Structures are given as C-alpha cells and as structure tokens.
C-alpha cells in the first residue's frame, strides 16, 4: 500500500525510458529556439534605441525644410517671433532665453531646499520616519503637471495679483515657483542617494575629529558627494526645461526678455509653451510648423547634452563611492 503510493508520486518526475542524451534534431531545435528567442528578446529591448533614433529622425526631418530655407543666424539671434505676420519672422532668442530663465530661477529655489531636504532624509531622520516622508516626495512627483498648472493659474496667479500687487499673476515668478516644486522630487531623490552612498568611514572620521554635524555635512560629506549632487541639479534642470503645461499656463506667454533682467514679475514665453500653443494653428507643411519643429530640435539638443552631463557626473559619483 505505502509502496504503491511512493511510486505514484515519483513517476511524473522523470521519464526513465528515454536516453539522457538529446537526438541531433532535438539538439538543433533547442539551439535554434534559444538563439531565436534571444534574438526576439533583443529586438524588443532594442525598441528603446529605435524610439530615440526615430524621435531624432522625425523631428529633424520635419524641421529640415525650415532650417535649410531660413537663416540659422536669424533663427537663433533675433528676438522677433512673428509667425503669422505678412512676412513672418522666426527669431527664437527671446523664447530660448525664456526657457533658460525660468529653469534657472526654479533651480534657485529648488537646489538649496532640495539639498537640505536630502541631508535631512539621509543623515538626520530615523529610518522609520523616512518611510513617512519619502512618500510625500513621491506624491509631489506623481501629481500630473496639468494639475500644477491648474493650481498656478487659478490659485497662485490671483493670489500674487492681490497680495504682491503685480499687474499680472501669470509671470516668470509664478512659473518658476511651480517648476521648483516639480523639480524638487528629482533633486531630492538623486541627491539623497549620492549623500547616503558616501560611506560611514568619512562621517565617523569627521565626528571623531570633533566636528559637529553641520561641519561634517558641509565640509566633508557634501564635497565628497558633489558629483551626485551636480547630477541631481542637472536632472532637475532637465525636468524644468522640458516641462510644458505649467509654463504654458503660468508664464504669461509674452515673447520678451525681461528688462531689467532680474524682474521676475514680467511675463515670458518658453520653447515648450511655444510649441504647445502654436502647433494647433500652424497649417501643415508651412514654414511656421517647420519653425516649431526646429524649436523641438533645439529642445532635444539641449536635453541630450544635459543628459550626457548628468550621466558623466552620475558615473563619476559611482566611481567615487567604489560601487559599479
């Protein structure tokens, strides 16, 4: 009785009647399947590369007729953007400056705050409390940009007009404040990773020399983690430059360079907002549409170069902490 049970449970484990070696046909089929499978997997993985190439190709392709027919110097150096005038002018200087202007202004708010918060999360807060604070950062990152834009237009703009006495609530200050909030999660998480990646040795050595926590942080840890922090800032910058909805809704969309340059209460216009706002009205195959795609190319160049910079600093940070 018990014997029969044992044999019953053992039987499906292996087919003992067959020889252990595979037949040549099976061997070949297995070889083919494994390599074919790998090839298919590789191709699917390769989609990301393909996507990047296609994005580059098609955005450049669409702007090609414009870029070849229009003076590149005028496109980059003129401040006049009058796409619908009788003789249209496509000078994107004010727009490019606008993009950089709000992004740097946003970083001005976001970097000190982000680095301080990263220090607090990595070195001061207990591990348990961190599990409460981190979701806050994640939720800030998850809120869709259109909701931030909504807040900027319907809450922040009227508030600014009423309490700061500005002539318009949709201005560079409004856009940069919101962009700062949106760039913060990126900056905090990358900076925190790099600060906590600096090992205990440095901290303990510093404390044992009698340094306070502030001295340890400012003179030892942050300099040691500088590569990662720079990468965090660059990634935050990328987030701010690429953001569309918030700047479109909150920046006022006036094609001008603020004068004097520090006057953040003036309306400005960014590259992303220009594309978003004018694409719908630009007729197909027109010069206007080509110009908008050309701005897209500029954006791509800008973000690609920022990406390379951030990759460089991230890999340096990895090397510095000895982790590959």
């Amino acid at each position: 009785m018990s014997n029969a049970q044992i044999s019953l449970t053992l039987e499906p484990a292996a087919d003992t009647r067959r020889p252990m070696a595979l037949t040549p046909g099976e061997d070949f089929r297995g070889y083919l399947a494994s390599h074919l499978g790998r090839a298919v997997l590789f191709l699917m993985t390769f989609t990301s590369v393909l996507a990047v190439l296609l994005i580059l190709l098609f955005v450049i392709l669409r702007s090609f007729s414009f870029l070849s027919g229009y003076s590149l110097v005028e496109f980059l150096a003129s401040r006049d953007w009058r796409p619908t005038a009788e003789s249209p002018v496509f000078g994107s200087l004010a727009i490019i400056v606008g993009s950089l202007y709000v992004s740097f202004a946003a970083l001005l708010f976001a970097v000190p705050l982000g680095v301080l918060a990263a220090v607090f999360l990595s070195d001061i807060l207990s591990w348990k409390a961190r599990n409460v604070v981190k979701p806050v950062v994640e939720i800030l990152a998850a809120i869709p940009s259109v909701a931030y834009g909504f807040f900027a237009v319907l809450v922040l703009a009227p508030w600014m007009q009423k309490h700061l006495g500005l002539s318009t609530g949709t201005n560079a200050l409004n856009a940069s404040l919101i962009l700062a909030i949106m760039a913060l999660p990126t900056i905090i998480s990358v900076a925190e990773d790099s600060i906590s990646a600096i090992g205990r040795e440095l901290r303990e050595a510093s404390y044992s020399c009698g340094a306070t926590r502030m001295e340890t942080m400012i003179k030892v840890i942050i300099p040691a983690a500088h590569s990662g922090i720079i990468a965090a800032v660059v990634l935050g910058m990328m987030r701010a430059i690429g953001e569309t909805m918030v700047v479109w809704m909150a920046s006022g969309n006036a094609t001008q360079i603020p004068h004097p340059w520090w006057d953040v209460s003036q309306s400005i216009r960014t590259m992303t907002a220009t594309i978003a706002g004018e694409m719908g009205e630009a007729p197909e195959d027109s010069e206007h549409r080509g110009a908008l795609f050309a701005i897209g190319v500029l954006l791509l160049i800008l973000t690609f170069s920022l990406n390379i910079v951030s990759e460089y600093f991230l890999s340096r940070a990895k090397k510095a902490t000895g982790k590959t």
Partner: protein
Amino acid sequence: MNLRIRGTLDRFFTAATGLSVVLLMLVLVAILGPMLYRGSNAVFFQGTVEFRKMQRDLFRRSDEATLNAEIAETEVFHRRISEMIDEFRKGVDIEAMSSQVRDIHRTFGQELRAKAVADDRYTELRNLTRDIRDSLEAAFAKQDIREIRPLLDGVLLHAENPAFQGTAAEKFFEIARSFLATAETVDLNHQQEYAAALRELQGILFHTQDLPGLLGPRPDEPQPLLVMLRYGATRWDQAQQLLDRFFWVEEWVEEKPGEPLVMRKEPRADLFPETLGPLFAYVQENADKMLKPKFTAYWQFFLDDNFNSHYFGGVGPEILGTLFITLVGMLFVIPFGIVSAAYLVECATDGQVIRIIRMCINTLAGVPSIVFGLFGLAFFVLFLFPLLGFEPKPCILAASMTLAVLTLPVMIRASEEAIRAVPRHYKEGALALGASRFHTFVTITLPAALPGILTGVILSLSRIAGETAPILFTGAVSMGDVPRSVFDPTRTLSYGSYDMAVGDRLAMMVPHNQYGMVVTLVALILILNTVAIVLRTRVYRKLRGQ
C-alpha cells in the same frame, strides 16, 4: 571658533534641514488641500429644485411625484415675482409701453375687420384709436405729472364708449390708469435710469441673453434654446452669489483723489422708487422657499456628459477617454517593458551594446514631453498611419502609442528593479534542478518579481493618465462625441483640466466643475500611486523575509 557658537550653528543647520522638509509637506498640503475641498463641491453640495429639474430633463432621473409638488410650490413664488416686476415695469419702461399700445391699435383694427364693420364706421373708429394711441405715447414721453394728467384724462373720456366694450381697445384704458397711478407716485425724471436698472435686475432674477439667473426663465416665457438658460441657480452657493448681487450693487469709487479705487456696496433697492420695495422684502423672505436647497450627493458626476461646455453635467466621457487611452497604451508598454527588463537582467552579456541600450533608455526618460507630442504627430499620425492605410488624423491609437514610448523607461526601470530584487538562490535552485534558463525565468523569477512589476505597471498607468503635452496634437480634443473605436480622438481628464483652467467666462462661473475635473484626475493618480507604494513596501518586506 567658540564651542558654544559651533553648537548653535549646528542646531540652526539641523533646524534648516528639518524646515525644508516641513516646507515641502506644507506645499503638498497647500496644493492638494484646497483643490480636494473645492473639487468635492462638484459632488457634495446643496442642490436646489432647479438642479432636480435639470436632472429630470437632461438625465432622466428624478422622483417625479415629489419634484412636481416642489415645482408647483415654487412656481407660486416665481409668478408673484414676475407680476410685481411687470406692474412696476408698466410705469417706467416707455419702449415696452409704446410698443404695447401700438400692438393694441393693430389688434383692434384686425378685430374690426373680422367683424366686417362698415367702411366709414371703420375709418372713424380707427381714427379715434389712433388719437388715443398718440396721446398715450405723448404722455409716456412726458415727465411732468401736470402735463401727463390732461393727456390721460383725454384718453379716459372714451373709456365708456360702447364701441370699445369687449374689444382689445379696453386695454388702452387699463394702461392709462396704471400709468396715471405710477406717474403720481414715481418720479418720472428717472424713468430712463429705472428702466436700465430694471433690465439688470431681471437679468439677475431670470436670465440675460447668455447667462442664467436665479429663478430660470419667466413663467410666461417660451423655453430658451440654450440649455443652461432653462434653469435657475442649480446650487445653493450659486444662488447665494446671485442673491448677493440682487440685493447689493458693487461700485468702484475714488475715495481720495489719486488713490486706487475702493469697492463699496450699495443696496440695490436704493436704485428703485419705493413702489418696488416689497419685491426685495419678498425675495429676502422667500429665497429658500423658492429654491428649496437640499443636500445632494451627485455621484453621477463621474458618469454624466456635460452641457454648454461644462456648465451642467459631469466628467463621464473624460474618464472614459482617459481609461481608453491608458489601457491601449498599457497594451504596448507592458510586454515591451517586461521583456526589455528581463533581457537587461538575464541575458545581458555584451557590454558595449547593453551600455548603448541603457544610455538610450536614460535619454528617452529625459526627452521633454512636448517633443514626444511632436514625434507622435510626425511619426504615428503623419508617417505610419498613411503607410498602413489609416486616415492620418489624431486619434486614441496615436495618443496611446506616443504615451507608451514616453512611459517605456518608467516601466523598464521598475521591472528591472523588481527582477533584480528576486534573491539569487531562487534562480540557482531552479537551475540546479535542471530547468532551462527560459523555464526558470518564466516559472520562478517572473512570479516572484510579479508584485514588483505590478508596481511598475501601476506607476506607468498613472504617468500615462496624467500626461497632457504629448496628446495635445495626437488625440485629445476639448469637445466631441464619446469615441467608438481607437481611430477616434477623445476627451481626457488631463486635457479637460487644462481646457477648463484657461477656459472662458463660462468655465469661471462653475468653479466646482473646474475643480471637479482636476480633482478627479488627481484622485485617480494619487490612488494609483498609493496602491503602488503600499504594494512595493509589502513586496520588499516579503522578499527580505521579514
């Protein structure tokens, strides 16, 4: 440096870092708190009888018997108010009165023709009524009671004329008498001002050309064509704003020369003579009886379509469109994301190629969302669709594919992390038992990594649902039918939120619907993210064996 100073500085530093995090939390609360509160007003509010009427007419849901009783009760008030206004208007609105007497004159002529009166008698009576009409119009134009009285007395002499008994001409004398009464009580020098003020008052009470008022159309008026003009204030908060405008006039006055203007509120009743005083008292007394506010939980907000660009109704089609785009997008992202992650973790041997792939994934994550929109338009809509024989126009399929490319990095990174988190000994155990690598991956690694992958799926879902810029040119519209296939464009919550935030005056009049739309989107995404965060913590706890 002094030890004490160093200690103080250190404490300041700690406080500053702590404050930065507190500030972060405050920002989150400041953004989400008011938004959620005002958005909840779209669903929970004090609905008036007009709201229930609107629900019955537009969405076919009501408690017929109670509603009819309510309407009957409120209509009494509507009629009374309308009568009070008419009575007052008779005295002041010259144009209306003049056109009325001209009408009477015409109708009287038609009545005579119908009765087939003899020609000379007809001419005689017509001449008489023309004289009456002219002296009435002359009286309306005068402002001094001493000039008006003789003119009206002359008209009223004919009141007993048997030829006018039982005809339209009787109304001449009614008008003459009531105008005499008004002229004796009201200062006619202000006639023009009264007429203008009355028009504004009626706009607030009933409706203007294009904006709804407190009570809806007048009882004797045909139903307006524009849906939103057919109903009065559907919400008690709206009604209170209108009542405030009804009782008070806002004026910007310059109190001191050179200073900014200051707003002052004056009672609207002061604009009118005392004869209209009872109307204000009446409305004040019966405001809640006319509108019958009642707590309403309008959960159908999430199902209903909207009317008059979101003046009435909900966000049903927007939710449907968002789900549609998200699900189609996920069909593309999930397989590609998981396979890419699996390849990167399990099969990656060749250093150079893998480095390029990783670099491209990072690059893809950094491409601005609007550029994805450009790419979607240039590649999917204008290049791929004509190639495959589809119509090259923005649609759900194009939007979904664009968003799929955008979220691919999110999905790959999350899945990769999940697969890497599976302990080595799981896999080694399976391989030692003679399972092939494919077999091991499918039966051992993937099931263990599945909850983590699910986290990635949820995160990409929330990313797709929230993005706006990429679908601007590839498939989102602000108005239109509910999509029937993936080749139709659709409304979405994200684009709808944008549209309502920068929308026209009408959207600004329904802040509850503006906030309702954006809160639906934010709530959807917060729920998805909370689920993802909770799931992730549990998975890692389990895999670590805690």
